């Protein structure tokens, strides 16, 4: 059996646990790039769409090639380029649906090599025509073939590759073609048609991925809505199980004599830190509410939402109110077109307001105040107000040019339950 180094005291161990929590939280576990689930979340479908676009472009390019056939001084390299390109496209399409999430490095390198070969063959075929922009067919489609692997490699790799291809084509044009007002426009057009679709594709895939991540984050956090009044976080039981197991191993070692008594100071300190951690975990956890867990477990909310809830009153909200509050906070943080501006939201719950005369329903009045920065009142999405309305009656105002909402939230008195 092995123990952590003795230099790690209880606090050190705890700090480590905390740090790891931020890494292995549910959402992050699912959206880390190396995770095989990611492609199945719609990007594979987007990849097929990109292939389709590439296919349409290939048909268009091929029809031009057929049209130019009589012009070629020697059509053999051009024909070879097209045959090679069609083989590469078909193979890449089939392969991309087999390899799943990520194209292995060697395959990507081979793919780029073959694309380069296609471009070289095409350029060789049209060299003597001295108008690359006009006569290039297979090479332009080959550049766009990067769309086939757009979901399988990192955006930066795709952008670097298309950049290199673009620079290469530009160099060939400058060397081969004497630019005149007659042919300059077709060079620009050809280059743009080779490069821009891939760049736009990268932008789409990136946007799609971040959209999926945010939605995943929201859905995972949504599960806190049905949590009991005081809940443990997702990892509480894991940590407790880990501590129990460590204690079991230690005790077992002592029992079987593998660890001699009296213990060496190193092992004794391990026992001490285990005891302290175990104690902390037995009392910890149950005083945090769903809202706390929702905010800490969410990548998006964790960054920009702070919660003040001294009395743990958020736990008293019913499922509908929780859903509304979470949706409202989510919309305030996320629902805006400009993702560059930083929005922060402060949620403060409680303290309980004494209602006079005592309400007939025996409900408690818990004020919930949402203060924000960077949220203009007239820019708030209407669905935010619907969500807030589900929490309770509200009044809204502006504070420092940003939205402030006060909600009167009525909850069941836990003493009556």
């Amino acid at each position, binding site marked *: 059996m092995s123990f952590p180094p003795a230099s790690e005291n209880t606090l050190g161990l705890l700090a480590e646990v905390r740090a790891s929590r931020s890494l292995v939280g*549910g959402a992050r576990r699912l959206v880390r790039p190396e995770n095989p689930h990611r492609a199945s*979340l*719609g990007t594979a*479908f987007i990849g*097929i*769409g990109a292939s389709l*676009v590439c296919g*349409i472009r290939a048909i*268009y390019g091929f029809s031009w090639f057929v049209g130019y056939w009589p012009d070629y001084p020697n059509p053999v390299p051009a024909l070879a380029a097209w045959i090679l390109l069609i083989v590469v496209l078909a193979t890449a399409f089939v392969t991309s649906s087999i390899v799943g999430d990520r194209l292995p490095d060697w395959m990507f390198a081979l793919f780029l090599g073959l694309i380069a070969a296609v471009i070289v063959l095409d350029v060789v075929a049209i060299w003597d025509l001295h108008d690359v922009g006009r006569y290039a067919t297979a090479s332009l489609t080959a550049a766009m073939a990067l769309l086939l692997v757009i979901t399988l490699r990192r955006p930066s790799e795709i952008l670097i590759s298309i950049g290199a291809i673009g620079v290469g084509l530009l160099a060939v044009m400058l060397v081969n073609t004497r630019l005149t*007002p007659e042919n*300059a*426009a*077709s060079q*620009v*057009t050809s280059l*743009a*048609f080779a490069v821009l*679709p891939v*760049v*736009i594709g990268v*932008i*789409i895939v990136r*946007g*799609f991925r971040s*959209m999926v991540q*945010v*939605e*995943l984050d*929201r*859905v995972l956090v*949504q*599960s806190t809505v049905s*949590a009991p009044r005081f809940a*443990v976080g*997702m*990892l509480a*039981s894991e940590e*407790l*199980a880990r501590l*129990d*197991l460590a*204690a079991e191993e230690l*005790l*077992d070692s*002592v*029992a079987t*004599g593998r660890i001699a*008594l*009296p*213990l*060496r*100071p190193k092992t*004794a300190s391990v026992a*001490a830190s285990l*005891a302290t951690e175990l104690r*902390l975990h*037995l*009392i910890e*956890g*149950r005083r945090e509410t769903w809202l706390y867990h929702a905010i800490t477990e969410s990548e998006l909310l964790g960054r920009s939402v702070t919660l003040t809830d001294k009395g743990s009153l958020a736990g008293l909200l019913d499922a509908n109110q929780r859903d509304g509050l979470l949706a409202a906070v989510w919309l305030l943080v996320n629902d805006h077109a400009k993702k560059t501006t930083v929005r922060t939201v402060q949620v403060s719950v409680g303290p309980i307001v004494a209602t006079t005369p005592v309400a007939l329903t025996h409900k408690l009045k818990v004020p919930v105040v949402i203060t924000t920065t960077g949220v203009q009142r007239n820019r708030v999405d209407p669905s935010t107000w619907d969500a807030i309305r589900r929490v309770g009656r509200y009044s809204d105002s502006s504070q420092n040019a940003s939205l402030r909402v006060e909600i009167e939230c009525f909850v069941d008195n836990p003493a009556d339950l």
Partner: protein
Amino acid sequence: MDHILKERDRLLQRTARVYGLSFAVVATLCLVMPGAVTPATYLPFVPLLVALLVAQYRVGLSRSYLWVFIEVASVLGIVATITVLNPDGLTPAALSSIAQFTAASLPSVALVLSTDRVRLTVLVLVFVVVAAVTTWLTADSRSPLMTVGLLVLGWSIAAVVGIWISAGVPQAARRIASIGRAHRAERQASEIEAQRRQSARLLHDTVLATLTLLAHSGVGVAPAALQQQSADDAKLLRQLRLGATPTPLSSGGYNLEPVEETVLGTTLESVKQRFGRMGLEVAWHGTGQVLLPSDVLDAFLLALAECLENVRRHSGVREAHVTIVDDATTVRAMITDAGVGFILDDVDSARLGFKESVVARLKEVGGHARLFSEPGSGTTVVLEVPR
């Protein structure tokens, strides 16, 4: 679902903006080539281009049809300007530029017109109008077949992109929702598991006691006894790990018999005797016979024993008074000593034991503890549990 659909629309809008603007720039580049068009063309072209760029930028932010129509109108205006002001036939550069505007830049609107049937209908109408007008205007310089082919290519690529994203998002959303359901189940399981482990309080008490002995290197305890205790505790933890909820009978000098609904009095007597043996005289006052549910009784007794242990260790006196009173809803114990007392603030932070053993334990069964003390005037702890 609504939420992600809104996000999808934003993604489409942003893409349409980049798509449209980038090809508009390329088209403009073609048009400013020397000799591409007559100089007079630029006069109406510039305001039309500005209108197009503004509309394309606005499409990124707004779902309104207005910007789409402004885009269509300005592109058709540009095509008309170029063809009308260059009556001697269009140069290749001008033709390229028209092709870029009509078959690459303007089709970006297909991305935002692909999300539902109404918008798709508008898309088809827009395409028909653009194709008809462009083909008619450029008929002199380029064969209509080629123009239409180019337009079909450009618009179908953009439409495929738009429709594909529109269809891909609900698919992804369904998968995400099913992950969400799995996650909810996982959270509930985690909650139950944590509860099971946390409620194995008696077990953890004995494990903690043994770990504490080990933390002092096991000095002062017979090695054989400690090994035996470790073996017992390891076995209990193994049982807990394998799914059982073991209830230990003893730990060291403790004797924690499981109780169902036990009379408080007899159990108090055993606590009293145990502390008597360790040198602390406990004087009982008040109710002797109270029935409590077993978990409440456990928490109550353990908290009480913990308080008495604190008195024994820290107060400096050898006598403690315990007063038990009960009414219809609560059972209350007041543990008083006339010892040295302490400053309350020190305890909160420094003594985890009180918080964990007493407060947390009582809280779990709905009770609470209050602590009163001052240096030199003894300590009083009030424990309350519901009946």
